């Protein structure tokens, strides 16, 4: 009966709106990326710059830094919408909230996850990672970081109403990141040694599919809880 927008249009509209907001708050969204680079810089300084040591631990360092950077950026998915009441408007939308949540998480990934792809090769080179491991590194970041955003969104949705949500957010989210960390860094390790990595990549893809299909529903439920 109504002439409301199709779900796809609403999805794209919300995605574009979040990208536009990110563009207007560039400085804020650049912070996690800067943090990612900074954390990685600390490791050679702490452990000594032995080339073989750095090459050995590079996959682990890059992925731990990616987890921490993702943690740092998570709050921005819902925080400002919660503070200014836009979140209520989204929850009262005529469209299914889980799909709108997916739009917001996609936007978040595009501005925080995707840039890691650009700086990661640079850092990999600085840590002396072998050239044959680098395509795998990019592939794990491409598949792995959306999972971080999707799982993280549940955590933020649960804690966005709290005044001191930050510390509890890491307690909720980091344990859930363990499988991604394990499979991503082991894929890169294997690639560096010249082994097959398809098993790890398929596992990461499976995690991605699972989190795309389940996490928006949990996030939507958690947002309703936080808004009440």
């Amino acid at each position: 009966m109504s002439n409301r927008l199709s779900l796809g249009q609403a999805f794209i509209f919300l995605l574009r709106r979040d990208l536009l907001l990110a563009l207007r708050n560039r400085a804020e969204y650049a912070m996690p990326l800067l943090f990612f680079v900074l954390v990685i810089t600390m490791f050679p300084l702490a452990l000594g710059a032995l080339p073989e040591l750095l090459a050995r631990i590079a996959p682990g360092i890059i992925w731990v830094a990616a987890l921490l950077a993702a943690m740092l950026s998570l709050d921005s998915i819902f925080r400002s919408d919660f503070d200014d009441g836009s979140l209520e408007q989204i929850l009262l939308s005529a469209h299914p909230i889980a799909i709108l949540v997916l739009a917001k998480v996609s936007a978040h990934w595009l501005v925080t996850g995707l840039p890691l792809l650009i700086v990661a090769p640079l850092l990999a080179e600085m840590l002396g990672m072998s050239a044959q491991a680098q395509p795998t590194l990019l592939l794990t970041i491409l598949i792995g970081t959306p999972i971080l955003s999707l799982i993280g969104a549940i955590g933020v949705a649960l804690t966005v109403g709290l005044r001191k949500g930050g510390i509890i957010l890491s307690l909720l989210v980091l344990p859930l990141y363990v499988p991604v960390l394990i499979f991503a860094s082991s894929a890169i390790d294997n690639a560096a040694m010249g082994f097959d990595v398809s098993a790890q990549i398929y596992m990461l893809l499976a995690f991605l599919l699972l989190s795309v299909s389940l996490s928006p529903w949990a996030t939507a439920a958690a947002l309703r809880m936080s808004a009440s």
Partner: protein
Amino acid sequence: MLVVEGPNGCGKTSLLRILTGLRLADSGEILWRGQPIDRLAGDYYEQVNYVGHHDGVKYELSCLENLRLARAMGVPSPLDLDDVLEQVNLYAYGDSEVGSLSAGQKRRLALARLLATDSLLWILDEPFTSLDKASMEMFAGLFEQHLQRDGVIVVTSHHDISLPTRDLQRLNLGAQA
């Protein structure tokens, strides 16, 4: 039109939020045309417009961008967005960032959502906060028009303004407390 009245803290806002489904009722359920709202979900929400304590507008976006988003989330009304801004006296600010507007202007933009989207039930929590006398009367006029179109308004307000008298009901929550 239903005006919810009562002293601070008597549960006016809670009642309104329960009506929108944002908050769960401790017991009982909310029916819209005989059906519980949590089952209707989207079909209920496309007929509801809610303006709460927070304006729900993004400071980094312009007035027009904000209204376009509101339209995308609900059901767009046939009105042109420029006309909507004209009606709430924000026409000159269409492309300015909301962050640079005054509190009263932001409030008018939030209320402009009522015109930008097509909905039957308006749920308004203190809609007149930080509005001047002229704006209040302007919105009172808009409420009147909405009621003439068989719309429904549930409102809380401390402001003593000349609300339309058609079908006006008052609910005083303070009486029980």
